[in-house]
């Protein structure tokens, strides 16, 4: 009954943070994130409402509305996910070429997904519906890296963790709201799937409009003009020749010790991160969670993610991103530990889901913030795409391995092995410790 990992790419995040336009050069310590981050967060929130509306009703639409079985989708999903990883790299690269195309590449991604919604109204069999969803995924893959690059470029290094935290929280809020909106529409209508798709389209258009109107266009200010702009404090100060944004240069990023270290950490830890579906299944099996509550388990994780994203992002800025990133994996380890104990209290599912959401809050945006510090402005989008794709592939590999281990040894042993692997990877990542960059030293441009 397991469900293959559908979240290998981590929760779709939107971008947030955008001080480049608004931040005063005087270096006034901003207590909140900049307007660009808020604008990008709003775009993500709105877009997630739109896309999760569709995701929530699609199975019902297929089975009850069209009389099909949605199983075919499950089989296609893996292909889409793999494809999405490739598109992500392409999106990252496209956004970097020509200097400041982040906004427009991200916008194209958002627009592509928006256009898919009305198409669902006319696609009435599995093949066209499958195609529409594939295009939707393409849009999602295309926009992720440029958007995260925009967030990092429009926030200062010392507030970057918070900026990503705000963005992830807004993104998750949208994902939680979407199904609710869809359900309300279905309640008010008779078989109102067409209304759900139409409203979803309208909402998606608003998202694109907010992006076009309120996210500053230029995005990247080239630091070539001498003084490092506040938009680009993350670029290693030692950089002499600014790399041109070619594909080769993007790959050459991995020669940088710091980024290599981060990518390696993300890969290693990703390899030991059991997919969400398995965590929920284990929780259900350990506790005998009633079937009808099963669908609520991901909501629990998302709620904890929403609550913790901002505070943990801030903590990452103050206490160090690596530390918080590793602590997040510690929370995951603790969740595994709770699942392995024989304790069956009513508090257990809450504790596990809280830790699980905390894990996402401490790692998802924080990793992007950390990676941003070691990718030059010109290649920001490609660099982030590289890290994201590496992590997603590692998690996918882990899903496959965990499925095999579960088959061979049973769920408990498989989880035990994963826990040990995670502990070892975390230990190794602690020792590996790529060059430590404290916010204080990297933020001199602000003084």
């Amino acid at each position, binding site marked *: *009954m*397991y*469900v*293959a990992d*559908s*979240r290998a790419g981590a929760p779709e995040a939107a971008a947030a943070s955008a001080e480049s336009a608004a931040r005063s050069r005087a270096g006034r310590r901003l207590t909140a994130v900049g307007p660009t981050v808020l604008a990008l967060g709003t775009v993500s929130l709105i877009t997630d409402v739109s896309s*999760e509306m569709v*995701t929530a009703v699609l*199975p019902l639409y297929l*089975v*009850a*509305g*069209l*009389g*099909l*079985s*949605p*199983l*075919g*989708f*499950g089989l*296609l*999903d893996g292909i889409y996910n793999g494809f999405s990883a490739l598109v992500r790299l392409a999106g990252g690269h496209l956004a970097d070429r020509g200097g400041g195309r982040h906004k427009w590449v991200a916008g194209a991604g958002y627009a592509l997904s928006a256009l898919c919604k009305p198409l669902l109204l006319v696609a009435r*069999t*599995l*093949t066209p*519906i*499958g195609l529409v969803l594939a295009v939707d995924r393409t849009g999602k893959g295309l926009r992720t890296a440029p958007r995260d690059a925009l967030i990092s470029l429009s926030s200062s290094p010392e507030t970057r963790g918070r900026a990503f935290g705000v963005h992830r929280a807004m993104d998750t809020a949208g*994902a939680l709201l979407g199904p*609710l909106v869809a*359900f309300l*529409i279905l309640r*008010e*209508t*008779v*078989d*109102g799937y*067409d*209304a759900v798709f139409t*409203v979803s389209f*309208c*909402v998606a*258009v*608003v998202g694109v*409009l907010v992006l076009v*109107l*309120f996210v500053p266009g230029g995005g990247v200010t080239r630091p070539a003009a001498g003084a490092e702009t506040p938009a680009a404090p993350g670029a290693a100060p030692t950089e002499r020749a600014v790399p041109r944004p070619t594909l080769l240069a993007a790959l050459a990023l991995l020669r940088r010790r710091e980024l290599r270290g981060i990518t390696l950490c993300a890969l290693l830890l990703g390899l030991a991160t059991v997919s*969400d*579906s398995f965590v*929920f*299944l284990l929780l259900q099996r350990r506790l005998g969670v*009633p*079937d009808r509550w099963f*669908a609520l388990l991901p*909501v629990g994780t*998302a709620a904890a993610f929403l609550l913790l994203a901002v505070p943990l992002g801030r903590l990452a800025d103050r206490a160090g991103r690596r530390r918080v990133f590793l602590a997040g994996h510690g929370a995951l380890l603790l969740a595994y530990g709770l699942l392995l104990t024989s304790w069956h209290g009513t508090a257990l599912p809450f504790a596990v889901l809280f830790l699980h959401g905390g894990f996402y809050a401490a790692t998802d945006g924080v990793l992007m913030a950390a990676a941003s510090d070691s990718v030059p402005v010109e290649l920001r989008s490609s660099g982030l795409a590289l890290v994201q794709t590496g992590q997603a592939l590692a998690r996918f590999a882990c899903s496959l391995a965990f*499925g095999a281990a*579960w*088959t061979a040894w*049973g769920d408990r042993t498989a989880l035990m092995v994963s826990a040990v692997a995670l502990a070892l990877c975390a230990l190794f990542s602690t020792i590996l410790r790529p060059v430590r960059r404290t916010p204080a030293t990297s933020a001199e441009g602000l003084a």
Partner: protein
Amino acid sequence: MTLRTRILVLVSALVVLAGVATASVLHASARAERRNQAQPGGPLITTGTVALTDSRRLVFRNMAWGPHRDELTSVPASDPSGPRTASKVKCLRFYAASGTGVCLQAVHGTVQDTYRAVILDSALRVRARYDVPGIPSRARVSPSGRYAAWTAFVGGDSYAGTNFSTRAAIVDTRTGRLTPSLEAYRVVKDGSTYRSSDVNFWGVTFADDDRTFYATMATHGTTYLIRGDLATRTVTTVHTNVECPSLSPDGTRVAFKKRVEGLPKDAPWHLYVLDLRTGRETALAEPRSVDDQVVWRDDRTLVYALPGDYGADLWTLPADGTGRPRRVSTAAVSPAYPR
């Protein structure tokens, strides 16, 4: 653009989009009115008594617009496109045999729909209710009417993605004993016990001994026809690439949808009949991809649903590979011939 202009543009767009969104919701909710009017040329429907013991009639979920949409409806088995008698009992999926019906329904809640399986007696009175963990899909009753089975699609992660797993449940309607998931059964594959976390079951079909059943089992990308034993709670693989099997009344053959190489990945199924003794497969004369668990009208004829203008239509086809598909009824799904 100044901030003022941008806000103006956004607000104007919001007004237009809100108008479109509101109109679409109103349009969809007003549909209740129109759906209460039968569409021109649609079948004639009247309210009446639907009994699950009348072997001269065919019972299905009526999908035609009008006040009886989604209700269990019966028509003369000899004239499936003839006048319909509607029962007021609404089901998403349905099946019946020997005076026992299983009706999979949606229960509309405040923030979420839930689903349940209802066991009906021959006069469609509720005998028992069971929670269904996801969107209901297949339903079957054993020829004696003693056992009922259903399949639900369960989204393991509603937060993202379109992955589903399935759970097939079987209930003994006499004792009320429920097996919520066939995953509780021992799986024998290639002669030895098989364990895997990715096992999914769907599409149960019963033999008339009230002990043997067949179903689909999927694991590691392969679908198997399995023969189940209700007494020993064991399932054994007997054939590969079989989905949604349906056992013939004489118990010798299984009609099923087979995933065929070269077809689009999301519409990949053609109908086949497998002879259980010889293991020989016969391709049926339906060129379209069929996503349904077919029903045997008798030992020679199959009935199944294909998407149509009002949801789904019922089609019939000879079970021996000859002939051609013929539409017998529009706006109908989940057929059952009470025997």
